[in-house]
């Protein structure tokens, strides 16, 4: 551990919490904190993945049938949207690291727009399920032989995509807040930690979707 006295420079001191010795220590701490938070998120989704696996094993035919009622076009486009948003987020973090204020604001804005686009597309897709009568309990018109088990698939679908969308919405709002702050110049190069930490969160949400795509849309097509 590096022993270093607390910095005296006015600007640096303002950025430094009283419990830290150096900005570097503070940065590394925040980063580790976010990673641990993401580990808890993995476990949160992990519960759902477990449930999914159990029921898919129990009712393979129904789950395949369920997947066939999803529209892969939405799924694929949304995947692309999220991947590109991850790129712009990564670039935003880079801009923050380098202290490029204008680029930072723009890239964050693009990221937020892409995120919102994802949620929007998801919303359209959900309303389509509603129109098709594929929403368990609220609008269920599916009358195939395995209705009950297909319903279970759609429960898995809605809970998983729902939780994911909640996460993405939180992400979009946070990015927008950062945009406002960044425009006021709140993130000079030595204070880019918040942006970087938010970036980690964003990429994580992307990652979850990358698993949801095969689990929900792809299995059962072949």
């Amino acid at each position, binding site marked *: 551990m590096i022993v270093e006295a607390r910095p005296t420079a006015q600007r640096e001191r303002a950025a430094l919490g009283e419990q830290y010795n150096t900005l570097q220590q503070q940065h590394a701490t925040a980063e580790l904190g976010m990673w641990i938070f993401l580990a808890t998120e993995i476990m949160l989704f992990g519960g759902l993945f477990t449930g999914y696996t159990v029921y898919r094993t129990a*009712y393979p*035919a*129904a789950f395949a049938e369920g997947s066939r009622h999803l529209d892969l076009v939405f799924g694929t486009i949304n995947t692309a949207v999220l991947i590109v948003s991850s790129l712009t987020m990564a670039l935003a973090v880079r801009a923050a690291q380098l202290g490029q204020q204008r680029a930072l604001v723009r890239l964050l804005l693009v990221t937020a727009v892409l995120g919102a686009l994802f949620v929007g597309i998801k919303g359209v897709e959900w309303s389509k399920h509603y129109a098709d009568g594929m929403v368990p309990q609220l609008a269920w018109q599916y009358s*195939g*032989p*395995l209705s*009950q*088990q297909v319903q279970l698939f759609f429960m898995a679908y809605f809970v998983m995509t729902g939780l994911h969308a909640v996460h993405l919405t939180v992400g979009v709002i946070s990015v927008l807040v950062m945009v406002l702050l960044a425009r006021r110049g709140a993130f000079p190069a030595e204070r880019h930690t918040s942006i970087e930490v938010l970036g980690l969160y964003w990429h994580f949400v992307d990652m979850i979707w990358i698993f949801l795509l095969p689990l929900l849309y792809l299995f059962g097509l072949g």
Partner: protein
Amino acid sequence: MLGLPIAPPQASTTAAEIDALVLFMLLGSFLIAGSIFCCIVVFCVKYRRRAGNQIGQPATRTAPLEITWTLVPLALGMIPFVWGARIYLAEAQPPPDAVEVYVVARQWMWKAEQPGGQAEIDALHVPVGRAVKLTMTSQDVIHSFYVPAFRVKADVLPGRYTTLWFQASQPGEYRLYCSQYCGTDHAAMIGTITALQPADFAAWLTSGATATNSPAAQGRKLFQQYGCIDCHETGRAPNLHGIYGQPVLLLDGSVVVADEAYIRESILSPAARVVSPYLPIMPSFAGQLNEDDLVQLLAYIKSIGIPGGATP
């Protein structure tokens, strides 16, 4: 056990072995805990702090001791594991000649049906000296069938069958509890198991007071009533004679064993696993049949499943 009232009566063939294991563990625990407590007391007296500034003497070379008390508990732990596992596996596998009794649980009562059709509420009569196997299911929430004197217990789940078996060794009346919390009257979901000498049991069976009709025969009636025979004995659907316990080839190429869970699923959601080479035309009977009906149908299909089995 030890002449002290610390164990319920040993009224089944497995009770003694479980008590023996418990006794073994009790002795072991007394030994281990006793030595630890003695050490604590002795050390506290012997090494009490005398001078104000006295400090303890740090230990050197702790590794040999530590390795010992890592490996010894590890080894000791394997004894109750293996012993307990053997009992468990024996308790899991009913002997083939066991009398088969069906049990349906619901909030807050037990219903048992003897092979001969005698139905009992919150009570069960069993013969001494013969294995009895219970096939159990629940109509609502999870319950648990627990007879301390027999040292047996198994949760009773909705939507699934679980089994439990025992062989009573002492005639007498024993308490039956529901041990899985199931709501308001959980504590009142109790009953009596009466173990009778074979002769008395035979007499009880024929006393007829509660005798109705055997589950399998009831099932046969339902089989007609719900129109199962219209397909299953006309060639439109697989003939169910002899399927119980046998592998079944499915449309998707896989093979399943026609056990209780499978038969249940076939009736409630026939399309889930379709038998080759049939079409999935069988309607679902979910909602039309209650758990008692299902148990009886199951009993019927099982009764015609025993190769050359007698249809009651």
